[in-house]
């Protein structure tokens, strides 16, 4: 079984976003870059399937700047077999551009399953999985919290408003991972040592131009300083009065 995980390197969740000099992108100073958290679930699921089947290959495919190599190396340390970096510069890419770049690379590869995180936590667009489904003409199940593989098909559970859907699709297929799918492993020391010898191939992506342009980046509206109503349960009647009469939300 050939499994490809499309992975993105992103600023970690502790990052305080500062807008860069161009006013359109973030200032990368002091930013700690990590594997996109949802992609960790994707990598873990790929590794578990390979281990369960006792055969197969897990390839990490990442489109991004040179620094993404570090994240690929981390994924290899978790147990993936090889990496491919579709190297870009730091210019803004929209989901259309990224999806075409990944799809063109995937068309040259062998895959039975393609995993992605349900979204990248930097751009939060959540478009690549479903876009690849169209570009590669294979099914895609998004926001998956449980996955089973049997007889050349997958059965997945996905969270939707008001409940859980159970969906079946034939292989090859795309799955986007949601938190809850599994508990990603930490890389072992041995894994980290072995990762140093695993191959990472560097290529130039074949991408179409972005169809969206960023005009400017802004900070969220500042919330004005809070008002401490009081302490202890004695403050509760005043709070309820404020919520009812001032805020008018209850």
């Amino acid at each position, binding site marked *: 079984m050939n499994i490809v995980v499309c992975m993105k390197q992103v600023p970690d969740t502790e990052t305080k976003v500062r807008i860069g000099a161009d006013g359109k992108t973030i200032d990368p100073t002091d930013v700690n870059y990590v594997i996109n958290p949802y992609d960790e679930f994707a990598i873990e699921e790929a590794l578990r399937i390979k281990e369960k089947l006792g055969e197969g290959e897990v390839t990490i495919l990442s489109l991004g700047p040179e620094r993404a190599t570090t994240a690929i190396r981390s994924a290899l340390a978790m147990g993936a077999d090889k990496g491919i970096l579709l190297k870009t510069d730091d210019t803004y890419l929209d989901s259309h551009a990224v999806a075409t770049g990944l799809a063109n690379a995937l068309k040259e590869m062998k895959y039975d399953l393609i995993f992605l995180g349900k979204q990248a936590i*930097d751009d939060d667009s959540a478009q690549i999985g*479903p876009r690849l489904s169209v570009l590669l003409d294979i099914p895609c199940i998004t926001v998956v919290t449980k996955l089973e593989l049997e007889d050349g098909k997958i059965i997945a559970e996905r969270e939707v408003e008001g409940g859980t859907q159970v969906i079946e699709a034939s292989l090859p297929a795309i799955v986007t991972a949601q938190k809850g799918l599994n508990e990603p492993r930490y890389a072992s020391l041995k894994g980290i040592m072995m990762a140093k010898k695993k191959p990472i191939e560097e290529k130039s992506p074949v991408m179409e131009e972005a169809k969206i342009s960023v005009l400017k980046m802004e900070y969220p509206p500042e919330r004005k300083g809070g008002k401490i109503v009081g*302490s202890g349960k004695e403050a509760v009647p005043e709070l309820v009065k404020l919520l009812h009469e001032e805020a008018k939300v*209850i």
Partner: protein
Amino acid sequence: MSKAVLFFAEQNNGQFRKSAFEVATAGRQVADALGGELVAAVVGDAIADSATTLGAYGVDKVIAAENTDFHYYSPEGFTQALIDIITELEPGVVLFPATSLGSDLAPRVAAKLGVGLASDCTELFVVDGKLEIKRPIYAGKAYIRVAFNSEPQMATLRSNVFSAQKQQEGKEAAVEKIQVNVAEGKSKSSVKEFRPMGGDRIELTEADIIVSGGRGMREPGNFAILEELAKELGAAVGASRAAVDAGWRPHSDQVGQTGKTVSPNLYIAVGISGAIQHLAGMSSSKYIVAINKDPEAPIFKKADYGIVGDLFEIVPALTEEVRKLKSS
């Protein structure tokens, strides 16, 4: 391309979702600014009759793709339905709700058309006859304003941000039924089962009020006091990452950068200190209340109202006070 604005009106068993009215209202404003008509795309297995009610929200026309195959969401079938409608109408703008379904469907339609799509937008502008949108990134730590280099200009709109407003009570929209080329949109995956969540749970992203608990709750059983407060308020119950990672609450309840981003009218943070990734996910709430024993907790800097103290005393007192208010 015409000046028409098309939007996907999401429905479930013939009932339109709240998001359908929100997107209709936002779409009406864009259509007015462009000087075009507002058209609703409705896809399902038995929807055409109820579709006329969209007229009250300023919808000029409904194009209904009715098909027995569309009882459940079929990604390929729904994509084909939208492509057929877009091909016929040639709208300048296409809007979707950023619901589970809308967020799965819109990128497929955009990919088929080879156009750009802006996800999860919170503001729409029309500048010189073109759409510009504002959307949060990094779960709301920053926003970007973007424009489109392709048409139709496509966006998904975040739930609970655009308010639904009726334009004219009782006005009916004309409904045009179309046949979808289902063979073209033959489904590659199928829904085998739908398991509804227990009871009358309110969806976090659609809730007007959210009561969230964090590490300060100490153990899973203690969430019962939040459930009780939530019941009194008609609220949904959320959780911080700490509470979810401790296994106290399901991950679907998580609010924050690796959970849900929410914008309710009222967000009550109980025993949540306010880690940056949590604040990102709830800072766009209209009003925030913090209940925490640590007066230095960062959550108080974001809260409109705060109470310092023992949540195990404060929350039950709050429930009681709300009960009194509701019965007065």
